[in-house]
């Protein structure tokens, strides 16, 4: 049991340190009925310095590399049934990470993050894509000194 826990922690640490993604989902602020249709509305999408207790802090479009980590926060509403969305991170138009996130009926917020390295300075963007591949939002920002 201890070995399994160590293995899981090790993998998580490796992914986080190498700039890979972490994804977390949390309960929606408000509950709602499941309509049965796979539809959702993007209410809010932003890149921020942190997400604490489901609340994004210091949303911006330029982040210092010293922040260490940045987050892409999305809030969905009118979710007809449980589905997934993707946060597709690009650095200088080259894919950097593609993160699959679950969203649940009827309202859900979720976020992804990347660990910043020195080489990550430059222009970034995150595409928010639904399960059907539809582009919901394109967030543009920069990582600077």
């Amino acid at each position, binding site marked *: 049991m201890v070995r399994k826990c160590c293995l899981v922690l090790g993998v998580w640490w490796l992914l986080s340190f190498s700039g890979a993604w972490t994804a977390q989902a949390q309960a929606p602020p408000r509950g709602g009925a499941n309509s049965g249709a796979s539809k959702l509305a993007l209410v809010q999408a932003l890149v921020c310095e942190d997400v604490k207790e489901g609340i994004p*802090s*210091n*949303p*911006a*479009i*330029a982040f*210092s590399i010293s922040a260490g980590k940045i987050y892409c926060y999305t809030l969905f509403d009118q979710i007809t049934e449980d589905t997934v969305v993707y946060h597709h991170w*690009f650095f200088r*138009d080259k894919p950097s990470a593609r993160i699959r996130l679950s969203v649940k009926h009827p309202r859900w917020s979720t976020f992804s993050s990347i660990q910043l390295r020195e080489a990550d*300075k*430059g*222009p970034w*963007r995150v595409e928010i894509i639904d399960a059907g591949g539809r582009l919901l939002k*394109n967030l*543009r920002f*920069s990582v*600077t*000194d």
Partner: protein
Amino acid sequence: MEKVLQFLSGIRWQDVVDIGLNSYILFRFYVLFRGTYVFRVLIGLTMLWFFQQMASYMGLIVTSWVVQGIVAVAALIIVVVFRNEIRSVLQARNFRTILWGFTSKTRIAPIDIIAECAFELARRRHGALIVMPGDEDIQELIQSGIAWNGDISREMILSIFYPDNPVHDGAALIEGDRVARAGVILPLSRREDLPSYLGTRHRAALGLAEATDSLVIVVSEQRGEVSVAKGVRLQTIGSPRQLAEELEEHFGIADEQSLPAKKERVEVTTAALVSLLFITGFWFSISRGLETLVTFDVPIEYQNRNPNMEIVHASVNAVRLNLSGSGTLVKSTRSDQVRVRLDLSTAAVGQNDFAITASNISLPPGLVLKNVNPQSIVVDLDVTVRKDLPVQVDWAGRLSENLILAEATVDPSRVEIAGGKRILENLQTIYTEKVPLDRLREGVGVIEVQLAIQPASLKVASGSNEKVAVKYLTRRRD
């Protein structure tokens, strides 16, 4: 012998034409300007040029510099001072005369007319003195007289020596087929052995004949006799035929061909040979003297490119050419005379390999291509398309610690870019040049930013602007 053959085999037909053409031009200059002051001044200038070259060769710095200055100024002066002579040569003569015609310098006096006139004057008892100069210059011995410059005719000679004519007491000077001057005063002979019946006219005829190689015809007013003074001899002439023979002998006219004509032919042939030798020497000094190697970095010119394609990338933009030629040619070669052209008419989309051969390179005559580096280049071509792309600001630097860059909008938010299809297919965003964050102030602001379009083969399509306005909002950190 082998070296001579090798040398001769190195001469191209263009070189022969080059030498021949310039020799002929020089020869024609001689033919057109001989006898004029222009030609003499040109010879003087040529000698000055040689002197300058010698001075330069010997390392006489100031002498070389001064002579060079004189030659440079003299060339200007000759055009200004002798503009009338040059114009008369170029305008008065027709095209054929300028290119290949010959004008005879020596014109033979009409002997028969002169002989008959002399005896007609004798019959009328009109005294006369007619001077036929030889090769020697008589200008310093004769005096006065008036310029006449009339074609010789019977009427003209008779009228000059008509007793009521103001110039009838002087001598008529014959030059070629013209009466050059009339009323000329001749020097008198100082001989004491002359018969007492010979008057001043005969003494004047002998005075010039003794001093020069001229022949002077004297017509006695009192006795109606015709005499000829030549050297120290004064001979009475009995008939026009005898006088004509004397004149023919004086002019050196043989049975078929005259000596002056022969002399002129020799002179012209000599001039032609000198022209040929001069130009040949000049040509060899320029094109074969002191072999020199030189290296040129020449940009590649692309030709016949399909207008729908564009060059995305070329492995090199310039090639290095190693050329050899005479030092004079190499020094005078300008970079725009050496060109490398590549024909793209057969090029296709994608990477194309082209070999750089002599057929791609144009050089001024006399320079020889020794080496090309690189010997081939790769040209990447693509079809030109347009694509509408979003603009993203490339922020850089560091914002003040207590500020956050909250928002920014770009106007226009999209631009149309033209370029290679393969490049644009993979391009999703056009970035601006780096915008330093430390320049931003708190609150709202607008800055104008240049687009940074990469690669360089891409261009903003006509109608789009290369600058965008960025409106930003900064606020204090929570």
